[in-house]
């Protein structure tokens, strides 16, 4: 349960909330008996908290299911969370912090007729807050493990898995302006090769004409390519990944925007940052078109060496970049992206000219002695606010970020954590500094205080302090935390999917309980 008592704070732009207190809460119940399981989730929004879609208003049981699972067959009726491959044509999931639940209410069957082959199929309508979406989603997925299926591959050290999927949505055409496709299909093929220390995953998807609000009602087909490869051995990890997305927003209601009724999931290829200032300018996937790459090297310097020290040192170097795809006019008289046309043409092998996001970061993690350990981090980020937040004319933001995170154990159960962060930029709101001190009495209590200070804002009257104080109590599977302070306006992203967070001031309470 999350609840907040809101205090108007005109300085930072926190509005007056007439209800004073708002709450988002849920309770998951899961029951398993042998091959059968059943579950439900009760949700209550009294009223919807600031920053979440107000269409969540209400309370009820929007999620319930019954499932049977044997060696060969897995059948679920009710609300279904499912993913085909990497999710680029189908992924239904729930994320409470983002306010996302795109579960399909219907029937899901997974069947393994012979070892090495699994076929999944589902059909249903998607959750739309406390209602259902207009469209019907149908999906079929097959996966073949060559090593399990073919005798010749059985003893091979190289494991190969092939997969293919097809998803189609149906929605009535009630639009008086455009001729719309009632059935829109998307197909994908994928391969996964694991050979010793190397793992390669790749998936390509294609979607036919799907004019929607998200793509400005253009009739161009969409496609997406995702490749990820990793190499790992003791003390060393290397990963390389790339993607190209072109017009791949796929929803069961063509007219809906925001984070509702999404059928597919287009992952972000950037490192998800946890520290406040490192996450101040986060990457958001652009379903209408983007291409990106990411490379990461993780190296462990052995302990008891000169550089590694007594306990060893972990170093991670990461670089990620996303930008626009090539776009050309369909003809001389049609503007790029013009509604009711094919929209544009795009050369798969050409890259676009606009940088969306770039993040170069180095992280050093080190245990200095028995009592002291720390994380040192440097990041250089480029953030296209105009594209990612949709503010035309906003400048590209270039920032240097430094972070020091020290944990000092006083005794076995008592420790202090000190976080110092600094962000340096000439654009947007200028420079920021943050300090956070946390005292933990494991495993039950923690006390924390922090201040985020926009000391470099070019407008002196906007050099605000965003102070916070919190206390938390954990016992068994129950966790209660109480926080008082200010939250700055920004966006919160998880895996490239984002929601707007408005400025607020007040007292918030979070209760998590499992039994």
């Amino acid at each position, binding site marked *: 349960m999350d609840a907040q008592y809101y205090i108007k704070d005109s300085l930072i732009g926190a509005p007056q909330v007439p209800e004073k207190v708002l709450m988002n809460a849920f309770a998951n119940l899961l029951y398993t008996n042998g091959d059968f399981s059943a579950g439900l989730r009760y949700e209550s929004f009294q009223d919807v908290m600031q920053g979440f879609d107000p269409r969540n208003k209400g309370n009820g049981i929007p999620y319930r299911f019954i499932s049977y699972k044997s060696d060969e067959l897995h059948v679920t009726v009710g609300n279904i969370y499912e993913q085909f491959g990497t999710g680029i044509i189908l992924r239904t999931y729930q994320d409470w912090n983002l306010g996302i639940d795109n579960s399909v209410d219907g029937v899901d069957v997974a069947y393994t007729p012979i070892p090495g082959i699994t076929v999944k199929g589902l059909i249903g309508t998607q959750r739309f807050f406390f209602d259902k979406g207009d469209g019907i989603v149908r999906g079929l997925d097959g996966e073949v493990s060559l090593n399990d299926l073919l005798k010749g591959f059985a003893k091979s050290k190289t494991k190969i898995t092939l997969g293919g999927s097809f998803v189609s949505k149906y929605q*009535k055409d009630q*639009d*008086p302006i455009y001729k719309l496709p009632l*059935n*829109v299909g998307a197909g994908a093929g994928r391969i996964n090769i694991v050979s010793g220390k190397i793992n390669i995953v790749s998936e390509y998807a294609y979607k*036919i004409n799907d004019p929607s*609000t998200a793509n400005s009602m253009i009739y161009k087909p969409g496609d997406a390519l995702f490749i990820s490869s990793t190499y790992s051995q003791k003390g060393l990890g290397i990963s390389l990944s790339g993607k190209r997305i072109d017009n791949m927003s796929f929803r069961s209601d063509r*007219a809906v925007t925001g984070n509702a009724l999404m059928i597919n999931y287009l992952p972000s290829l950037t490192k998800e940052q946890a520290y406040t200032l490192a996450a101040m300018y986060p990457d958001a996937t652009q379903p209408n078109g983007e291409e990106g790459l990411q490379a990461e090297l993780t190296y462990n310097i052995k302990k008891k060496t000169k550089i590694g020290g007594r306990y060893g040192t972990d170093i991670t170097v990461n670089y990620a970049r996303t930008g626009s795809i090539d776009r050309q006019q369909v003809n001389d008289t049609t503007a790029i992206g013009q509604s009711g046309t094919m929209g544009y043409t795009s050369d798969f092998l050409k890259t676009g000219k606009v940088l969306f996001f770039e993040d170069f970061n180095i992280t050093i993690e080190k245990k200095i002695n028995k009592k002291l350990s720390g994380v040192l981090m440097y990041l250089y980020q480029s953030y296209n606010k105009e594209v990612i937040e949709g503010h*035309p004319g906003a400048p590209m933001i270039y920032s240097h970020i430094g972070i020091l995170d020290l944990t000092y154990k006083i005794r076995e159960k008592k420790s202090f954590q000190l976080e110092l962060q600094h962000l340096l930029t000439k654009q947007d709101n200028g420079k920021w500094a943050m300090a956070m001190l946390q005292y933990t009495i494991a495993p039950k209590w923690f006390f924390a205080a922090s201040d985020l200070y926009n000391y470099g804002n070019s407008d002196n009257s906007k050099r605000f302090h965003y102070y916070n104080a919190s206390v938390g109590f954990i016992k068994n599977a129950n966790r209660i935390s109480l926080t008082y302070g200010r939250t700055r306006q920004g966006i919160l992203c998880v895996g490239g999917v984002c929601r707007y967070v408005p400025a607020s001031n007040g007292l918030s309470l979070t209760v998590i309980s499992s039994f």
Partner: protein
Amino acid sequence: MKRSSVFLAILSLAIVIFFSACDKVKPPFKESETDNNDTTATRNFLLEEFTGHECPNCPQGAIVAQQLKALYGNRLILLSIHAGELADPGTGQFALNLECPTGNELFTFFQVSAYPTGMVSRSGWSSTQNLAVLDKDSWGARIESLKNLTPLISVEISNAYDTTTRTVNSTIECDALQAMSGTYKIAAYLSEDSIVTAQLTENDPNYPSNIIPDYVDRHVLRGALNSTWGDTLATGNNPKNTQFLKNYSMVLNSAWNAKHCYVIAFVYDASNYEIVQVEEKKVR
């Protein structure tokens, strides 16, 4: 092996069925236009579009509204509500204030969280659900779902405008076209058409700066003649042909062009805010 063959046959059939679930649309992609300027009694629709001069996507919303107006003619009445953060008066060319208390009240009450969005006759709202505010490409479908409903009531507006005092006096006559039960309210708003001001845009090759300096704002809500939520028109049971008469007046701000102003009067169901009839008439 036998089981595998059966499985493969079922799988093949499933694939064929699934792959046939694709509709490729060929040009032209637009529907042909039909005449909707019917003069017989019909239920009209009010499209209340939430917009703002610093909302770059909003010109696209206005285009959709005009496309729908071309399709539905007199049956569709447009109202642009400038409210929320992106409509707040700014500096320089964005200094013009097109907000009004009525618009702000509607924006807050219907919990508008994005632009360009709008409500078609406020349908979709209830005390437990808030699905009245729609993205722009849903407006047409919502109109289609309402357009064959039998009209419950008629609304007729007569305006008298005093050029000296800049006062408009509106007489609104309503006739029950069917027996009515429940509480219905009547509200009258004033809109001003064709206000020229700056508007943010994006991806428009004609405006590489993303600012349209001479954008024409259509059907802008200026205020209410009888408050945001209006007055009670009918309660309890009222037989067919019951007549209701209301009079309202408003003094026009000196900055408003009276020749471009309209009175919009609508009757709505007080239990769910759904507008059951709407009309508009020029002030002068």
